[in-house]
């Protein structure tokens, strides 16, 4: 691929201009240029930069018609490259080192930000590992690779009937908020009193304005000391008094996701009304759709009070009395194993704007095939990796997560559904960003957003099979990966 680089300005501005490329803008691929600054790590408003700052790009990158997508956002990742987030090392400094290593490698797959997921574990493990998994983008250092947007605790307040490979003996029932604080550690789920009270009035003030203004500012999102490590929590809302705890979690800025649950349609609807905005790996670890009791999936068929997320009235504060809000987002594992392709297509058509593609990948992703030791906290198990399939040994084929990369999920999705490329990329960029409340800074190519970019090539085989390949990855305006060159710039 041609990559013409020429110096256009004698002044060093740290600005790169991508030209001759197709940008993912909404549901379209648009031929346009995009300017990024390595100094601010953001996408520039190029016209203002030109007329106001009188600056020109240091280098112009001709992408030869390739696709520029916002960096991918992975919402469910259990580990990778042999490192499992749900483990305690004897020396926790080792944990931090392995995590940094993972971040750098993960970024090469196009995932520039992600939500590290911890499965159902003991309280001790949560308290030890969560401080490491909180938002890590504050340093804005491109060389650190993928950035955590906060941790996802998938458990332990789950239904034992839908435990998947989670250890049933680790599962708990919560009756009050203190149960959660005891489990995860109060500092991991409750902001320190000073910051909590400081944030509170500002949220109330902004009510009544458009709902975008009530979003946390990028500073708040990017892990200053006030933010808590937990960004997202998967719960079974039908257990204990979990549904009534949802508003308190939402007010802490935690995304509540329904999953590993036996919830009926009514219970799931009540959870959504209480503020749950996400469904963890839809179809997996929940009741199947029954035509008279549609279960959790049925929530996607609920009539939308407001047709669009962005137009939802801001005066609706997250309280139990709130009428049913917009339909929740939902994660789908499009690895070809967890779900039948037709199921993926049905779910997408049910609620296109809510679809978030996730991998649910285990730490075996990126490793060769083989038999790997694994523990869910109880005894020693082995997971057999064969290609992208992970099975728990001795269970006769229980799927133990996946080992697929997110870009392959996107390619699968393209082939399963016949979606256009921007529609498919939206499920790993704009939609997860909106789900996590970071749509201003992540998952888009608008001016002011973080300059996390993925350059993609499009391949199609004779059979009409389409595939996207990650050619380059840029983080905060700096190239950190180029396919075919081993060194990370």
């Amino acid at each position: 691929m041609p990559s013409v680089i020429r110096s256009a300005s004698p002044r060093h501005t740290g600005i790169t201009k991508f030209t001759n490329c197709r940008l993912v803008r909404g549901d379209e691929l648009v031929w346009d240029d995009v300017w990024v600054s390595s100094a601010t790590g953001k996408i520039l408003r190029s016209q203002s930069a030109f007329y106001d700052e009188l600056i020109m790009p240091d280098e112009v990158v001709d992408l030869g018609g390739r696709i520029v997508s916002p960096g991918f956002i992975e919402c469910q990742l259990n580990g990778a490259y042999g490192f499992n987030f749900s483990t305690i090392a004897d020396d926790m400094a080792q944990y931090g080192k392995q995590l940094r290593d993972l971040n750098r490698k993960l970024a090469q797959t196009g995932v520039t930000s992600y939500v590290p997921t911890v499965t159902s574990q003991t309280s001790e493990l949560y308290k030890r590992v969560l401080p490491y998994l909180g938002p890590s983008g504050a340093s804005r250092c491109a060389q650190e690779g993928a950035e955590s947007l906060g941790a996802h605790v998938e458990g332990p307040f789950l239904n034992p009937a839908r435990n998947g490979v989670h250890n049933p003996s680790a599962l708990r029932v919560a009756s009050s908020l203190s149960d959660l604080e005891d489990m995860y550690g109060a500092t991991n789920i409750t902001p320190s009193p000073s910051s909590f009270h400081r944030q509170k009035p500002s949220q109330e003030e902004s009510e009544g304005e458009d709902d975008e203004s009530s979003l946390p500012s990028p500073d708040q999102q990017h892990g200053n000391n006030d933010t808590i490590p937990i960004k997202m929590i998967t719960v079974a809302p039908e257990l204990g008094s979990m549904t009534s705890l949802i508003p308190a979690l939402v007010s802490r800025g935690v995304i509540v996701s329904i999953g590993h649950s036996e919830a009926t349609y009514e219970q799931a609807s009540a959870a959504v009304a209480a503020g749950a905005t996400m469904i963890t790996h839809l179809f997996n670890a929940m009741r199947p759709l029954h035509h008279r009791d549609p279960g959790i999936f049925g929530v996607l068929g609920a009539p939308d009070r407001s047709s669009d997320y962005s137009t939802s009235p801001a005066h609706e504060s997250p309280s139990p009395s709130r009428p049913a809000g917009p339909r929740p987002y939902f994660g789908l594992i499009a690895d070809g194993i967890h779900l039948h392709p037709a199921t993926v297509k049905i779910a997408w058509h049910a609620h296109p704007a809510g679809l978030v593609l996730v991998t649910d990948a285990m730490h075996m992703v990126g490793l060769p095939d083989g038999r790997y030791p694994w523990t869910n906290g109880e005894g020693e198990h082995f997971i057999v990796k064969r290609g992208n399939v992970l099975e728990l040994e001795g269970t006769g084929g229980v799927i133990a997560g996946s080992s697929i990369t997110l870009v392959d999920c996107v390619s699968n999705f393209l082939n399963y559904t016949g979606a256009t490329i921007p529609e498919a990329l939206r499920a790993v960029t704009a939609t997860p960003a909106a789900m996590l409340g970071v749509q201003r800074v992540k998952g888009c190519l608008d001016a002011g957003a973080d300059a996390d970019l993925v350059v993609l090539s499009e391949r199609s085989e004779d059979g009409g099979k389409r595939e996207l390949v990650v050619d380059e990855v840029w983080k905060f305006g700096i190239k950190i990966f180029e396919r075919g060159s081993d060194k990370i710039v």
Partner: protein
Amino acid sequence: MRFIIRDNAEAASAHVANYIVDRINHFAPTPAHPFVLGLPTGSSPLGVYKSLVEKYKAGEVSFENVVTFNMDEYIGIPRDHPESYHSFMWKHFFSHVNIHPSNVHILDGNAPNLEAECVQYEAKIQAAGGIDLFLAGMGEDGHIAFNEPGSSLASRTRVKTLAYGTILANSRFFNDDLHKVPKMALTVGVQTVLEAREVVVLAIGARKAIALQRCIEQGVNHMWTLSAVQLHPHSMIVCDEDATLELQVKTVRYFKDIEKAAQAQGFEHILPSKVRTGPATVPTTIVTDEFPASTIHCPQPTTSRLLRATPATEYPVRSRSPSPDLSAPRLQHHLRPDNSVETEYTDGTAAEYTTAAVFSSRSTTPDLIPDRMASRIGDPSLLVRSTPNPERQRSRSPALASSMPMVNGIKA
């Protein structure tokens, strides 16, 4: 005037783009000796910009040492409004080529003092050494830039109210809401365009046919302001077949024939070498009180005396608006290294200010005349008055006058 007819819009645009590229490359601009290009906005030049961008990307031309001046800009919409001419130029041209932002000049429709902005703009054009090639489109009513029918053919850069027809036509870019369409604009004057060393006009489509006929076959007329290019020594109008609909067959054939004949002889219209390569050095403009500065350096204008430039400095004196040098720092930024022109310009304005101040003080305060009633009072010292006529004082009582050396700053 050269008049080039091409079969369709694409060919006409391509001809103009080729012509500009040839001119720039022949000019061989350098940082000290840039090519100065005047640029239009609107639908006609879109094809030209597209073509220029393609040629830039193909490596046929570089805009590194090209200085541009745009014709016009709306007043009262944000600079980055999608319909502003800043946005138009960015979207269709500047963002795709290697032009340096400090070489780009577009009138600022949000300037605090619009008159001063216009005066500065003319000064910037002068400072850049005048415009080498002014590309222009043509309105359906024959307007050039925003110089709508009835504009003075001697006009300069100024604030212009838009005609209702223009507002109506432009409303399609503003959700068909007439209230959103700016009602005013800043525009270069007809004279500003005529002072360029070369003017190239592009007229495309049947809608322009009547205007083209008026501008080519009829006389110079302020109701069809573009007709003023008839007075320009080096002008070229390029159009497609559709735009010739209202012309006489004779006219069309004549211009086609001479183009064909010239090509057969291998003789392309060639500008005088001085025009082709521009002045070797940036000339110094001398602003005097007596006569408006001539901004045409070469060749000397052949326009009539009546069409001579209106002095660009008339605005501050007449309206007593703040001196343009208030925003001098920004202006300096855009100037060539030697800002001698700017300095002289500012001085000249200052001098005129002083003159105006003296005049106004005289006219408001009547001359002091001796109070005749004072002669009835015995005390002779009362005869001495503050008066601007010391001679008379002296003749009446010389002894007293000599004892008062200074009266009102005038030595007795």
